[in-house]
C-alpha cells in the first residue's frame, strides 16, 4: 500500500517539540503490514521516542535486513535515509555506515529470523565491537513473510499455527547481548508502549551498542494458544523489573518520585534515566547479576522486561579505533592524500 499517498496536512494545533516538529514529521509511509501487527506498535514507539527527544529527523539513518520487521523503517522517519539491505546483514551495513559518519544516529531494525538465524553472527560481532547504535529486534518467533515457519527464538515446546511442536532450543538474544558486552540491554513488549517508548529514547541517547529485544506478536501466524509469543501469553508472563523516564535538559528534581523507589542513571551525553524499580533488588549495573536473573526467570517461563543492563560510561567503536572527530565521509584529498613529495620518498626507500 506504499503507493497510497499519505495526506500531508495536519491539524494546525498539533503539538510541537523543542525543535518545532510535530509527530507527523517523524512518520513515514503507510504500513503494509497486517492490521494489528505488533511491529506497527514498535514503529509508533520509535516515532514517539524521536519526537520526545526532539531529534532532527534527517539526522537518523535507519538500517534493516530483510523480513516483515525490516520493512518497517519505510513507515517511520520519512525524512531519514533508510537502507533495507540484505537478509541478516543489517549489523555490518550499519557498522560501515557508522564508521563513515559518526555524527548521525544509527537505528538498526531487525527481526528474529534476521538476527537469531541467518544473521546471528553479524548480530554478535556488531555488539562485541561496541558500534554506537540502537539495535531493535522485533521478535515474533516466526517467519511471517514466508508464512509461519519457526524462527530460532521460538521456545522449545511452543506450537506453530499448524500444530507442530518446536523441538529446538530457543536463542535468547538478550542473554547473548549481555554475554557479548552490549552496554545497554533491554527487553520490552510491543503491547506496552509506556515501557517501550522511554527504553528506545534511552537507547538512542546511549553511546555504545544498545540492544532492545521487543516481543512483537505476529497476529497472522503466531498469536494462537500454544504459542509463547502471543499477545495473551506475553501479557500473562511479562515480568517487568523496572519502568523508566528519560530526562533530557529537564531538572530531574522537577519530576516527583517517591523516595527510594527511583534510581537515577546519568548517561554519557548528560541525559538522565529515572528508573522506577518494580523489583527492588534488581541492579541494572550488574551484568553478571542480570544474566543470572534472566536465566532463573526464563526457567520459570517468565519474560523479564525493562532496562536490564546499562553501562553509562561505555566506549564505542570509534573510540577503540581512535578515529578523528570529523566524519570520515567529509574528508577530502587535502586531508587524506600524502601527496607526491611523500611518494618520492617512498619510491626512494624501495630501491
Amino acid at each position, binding site marked *: 500500500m*506504499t*503507493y497510497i499517498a499519505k495526506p500531508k496536512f495536519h491539524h494546525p494545533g498539533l503539538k510541537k517539540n523543542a525543535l518545532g516538529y510535530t509527530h507527523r514529521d517523524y512518520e513515514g509511509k503507510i504500513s503494509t503490514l497486517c492490521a494489528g501487527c505488533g511491529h506497527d506498535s514498535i514503529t509508533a514507539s520509535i516515532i514517539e521516542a524521536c519526537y520526545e527527544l526532539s531529534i*532532527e*529527523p*534527517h*539526522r537518523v*539513518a535507519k*538500517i534493516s535486513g530483510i523480513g516483515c520487521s525490516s520493512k518497517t*523503517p*519505510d513507515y517511520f522517519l*520519512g*525524512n*531519514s*535515509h*533508510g*537502507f*533495507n*539491505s*540484505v537478509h541478516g*546483514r543489517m*549489523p*555490518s*551495513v*550499519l*557498522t*560501515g*555506515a*557508522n*564508521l*563513515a*559518519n559518526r*555524527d*548521525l544516529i544509527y537505528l538498526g531494525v531487525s527481526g528474529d529470523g534476521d538476527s537469531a538465524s541467518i544473521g546471528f*553472527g*553479524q548480530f554478535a*560481532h556488531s555488539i562485541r*565491537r561496541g558500534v554506537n547504535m540502537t539495535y531493535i529486534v522485533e521478535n515474533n518467533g516466526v517467519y511471517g513473510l514466508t508464512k509461519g515457519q519457526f524462527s530460532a527464538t521460538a521456545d522449545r515446546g511452543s506450537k506453530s499455527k499448524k500444530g507442530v511442536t518446536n523441538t529446538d532450543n530457543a536463542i535468547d538474544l538478550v542473554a547473548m547481548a549481555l554475554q557479548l558486552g552490549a552496554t545497554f540491554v533491554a527487553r520490552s513488549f510491543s503491547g506496552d508502549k509506556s515501557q517501550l517508548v522511554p527504553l528506545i529514547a534511552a537507547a538512542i541517547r546511549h553511546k555504545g551498542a544498545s540492544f532492545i529485544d521487543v516481543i512483537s506478536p505476529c497476529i497472522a501466524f503466531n498469536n494462537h494458544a500454544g504459542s509463547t509469543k502471543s499477545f495473551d501469553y506475553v501479557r500473562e508472563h511479562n515480568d517487568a523489573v523496572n519502568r523508566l523516564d528519560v530526562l533530557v535538559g529537564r531538572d530531574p528534581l522537577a519530576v516527583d518520585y517517591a523516595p527510594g523507589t527511583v534510581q537515577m542513571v546519568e548517561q554519557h551525553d548528560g541525559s538522565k534515566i529515572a528508573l522506577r524499580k518494580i523489583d527492588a533488588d534488581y541492579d541494572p549495573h550488574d551484568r553478571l547479576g542480570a544474566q543470572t536473573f534472566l536465566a532463573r526467570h526464563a526457567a520459570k517461563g517468565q519474560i523479564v522486561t525493562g532496562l536490564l543492563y546499562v553501562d553509562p560510561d561505555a566506549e564505542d*567503536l570509534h573510540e577503540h*579505533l*581512535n*578515529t*578523528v*572527530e570529523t566524519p*570520515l*565521509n*567529509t*574528508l*577530502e*584529498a587535502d*586531508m*587524506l*592524500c*600524502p*601527496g*607526491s613529495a611523500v*611518494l618520492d620518498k*617512498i*619510491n626512494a626507500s*624501495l*630501491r
Partner: protein
Amino acid sequence: MSDKKPISSVNDFVVRFANVNGSGSASANEMFARAILRHGVPVSPRNIFPSNIQGLPTWYEVRVTEDGHLGARGGVDMMVAMNPQTWDKDVAGIEPGGYLFYDSTKPMPSTKFRDDITVIGVPLTAITNSTYTDPRQRQLFKNIIYLGALSALLDMDPKLIEQLIGEQYKGKEKLLSSNVHALHLGRDWALSNLKCPIGLRVRKSDKVGDRIFIEGNSAAALGAVYGGATVCAWYPITPSSSVAEAFTAHCKKYRHDPETGKAKYAIVQGEDELASIGIVIGASWNGARAFTATSGPGISLMTEFIGLSYFAEIPAVIMNIQRAGPSTGMPTRTQQCDIIACAYASHGDTKHVLLFPEDPAEAFEFAAAAFDLAERLQTTIFLMLDLDIGMNHRLCRPLKWDDAKQYDRGKVMTAEMLDEGRDFGRYLDVDGDGIPYRTYPGTHPTKGSYFTRGTSRDRYARYSEEGSVYADNMQRLVRKFETAQDLVPRPLQANAERPTKYGVIYFGSTSPAMDEAIGLLETRGHQLDRLRIRAFPFHSSVASFLAEHDFVYVVEQNRDSQLRQLIVNENGIDPVRLVPIVHYDGTPITARFIAKAIGDHQDHLKVTPLRKAVS
C-alpha cells in the same frame, strides 16, 4: 663431471633457494635479490610456498635478467639446496650444466648427485656451529653465511651487500656488525676453498634505472591511501591479507592527524567476508570511500552483497588477489581464475567493472582510480590482482601522483542543490549516461531522503513490481555500463614490425612473460600484434583489434579461458578465431610456454605450398 659443459652466463640466469618454511631464510634470500639490483642488474624474484607456516618446503627463485625479462623463465641454473626433504626433486630440477650449492657438513653418498652438474659444497653447519652457540643465531646466520659464499661464487661486490645490511640494521649496531661478520665468514671460506667465480656471474650494469622494487599488494594498499579510502574491512585470506596489513601500516605512517594523533581511517577485521563487504557497502552508502581485499572464496561469499551494490547502486571497491581455485584449490599458487566469477557476480542479470593491473605500479594507479570509478559509476569495482603480482617483489616504474588531482566524488546532490529546487530522483537518469544522482544520509531536513533497497523500485526510489518500471531500470543499468567503457583504463596495443594477420590478447600478470615471448616468437619468424586488456567492460578498440586479425590468441592463466569467454560473449565474436592459450598449474606463466604454444599453432597454420612440398 660428464661431457656437459658448465653453464656460463653473465647477468642472465636463475638461482633457486630450497628452504624449510620458518627457518628465517626469506630475509637473506631477499637480500640476495636486492644486492643484484644494486649491481644495476634487474631481477625478478618469486616466492613458491605451501599453505603452511612452519616446517614444510618453501622456495625462493631469483631470475637475474640484464634484459629485464621479469616473467618467470622456467628451469634452474643454480640450486641452493638447503632442504633435505626436497633434495631429490631439487637436484633433478637443475638444468644440465647447472650448479648445485649445498651444505657439505655431513657427507652425502655420490648417488645423491648428478654427473652433469657442478656440485659446490660449503660446510655451512660446521662454520656456523664453530662460530655461534645460540641455536636461533645459528639458524639465522647460516643464511647470511650462504649469502656470503654465493657472493664470492657469483662474483658479486660484497660492499653492496654490506650497504644493504647497513640500511636494514640502521641504528642497531650490534646486529649490523654481526651480520657483516657472518657474510664474510661465508665469503672468505668460499674464496679460500673454492674456485671463484663460477660460470654464472653478476657484473655491474645500469639496467635498473629509477625503477622501484615493491610487492603488488603493498602498492595496491598505497593506492588506496592515495585514492582516499577511509574505511577498510577485511577477513584474512591468502594471498590478500597483506593488502589490509600494508594498508594498516601505510595509514599508521601517513593518516594520523599531526595535532591530535587521531586516525583519518577506520580498519575493521570482519568476522567473515560477508561482514567485510557489508561494512564496505554501508560506509560507501554513507559517502566514505571504502574497500575490502579478498581472494576467490571470499568473492563467492560476497556475491549477494555485490548484487545489491549493482542493483541499489552503491559504490564498493573489492581487491581480488586471485589464487588457484575452485573451492580451496591451491591457496598459495597463482591463477587468473575469477574473471567470470567477478564479471557476472551475483544472481540475476549483473555485470561488474574489472581492472587488470600488470604490475605493482599499475596496481597503485588502478587502486587509486578504483575509488573514483566506484563513486562515479556507483557500483562495485574489482581490482583483479593475483598472487604472482601481489605477493612478490617486482621491479616497476616509480609510483607517481599528481598533487593537483581532486577526487571524483561522482554525482552527489547537496543540500544547496536541493534547496535550488533540483528534481531529485535517486534512480533518475538526468544526463543520459545512466548514472543518477545520490544524496548522502543526513543531507537535508526535508528533501533528498530516500529508501535504499534491493527490491525493484521506480526512478524516485519508490517500491514497484511493475514490469515496465523494472525493465526501465535494468535498461538504464545497461546504459551505465556502456558509460563505464570510456571511463576505465583503455587497452594498450603494440604492433609487430611487419603487418600481420595474427594478434594476441593478454592481461595482468601475464604481461612480462608475454613481452618476452614476443621476442622468442620473432626469432621463430612469427609476427604478432599485441593488445593488453586493462579493464572490463571492453573498450571498442577490443572489437576493432579482433576485426583486424584472422586469428587472435588469448593468453591467460586459467583452465577455461575465461577472458576469451567474456570477449566472445560480450562482442558476439566467432569463437573459432579466438585461440585459447592457457596455463593453469599454479605456477606463473612463462615466456617459454607462451612462445611454444603460439609458435606450434602458428607452424600448424602455415600451409606449405604444394609445389614446395613435393619437390
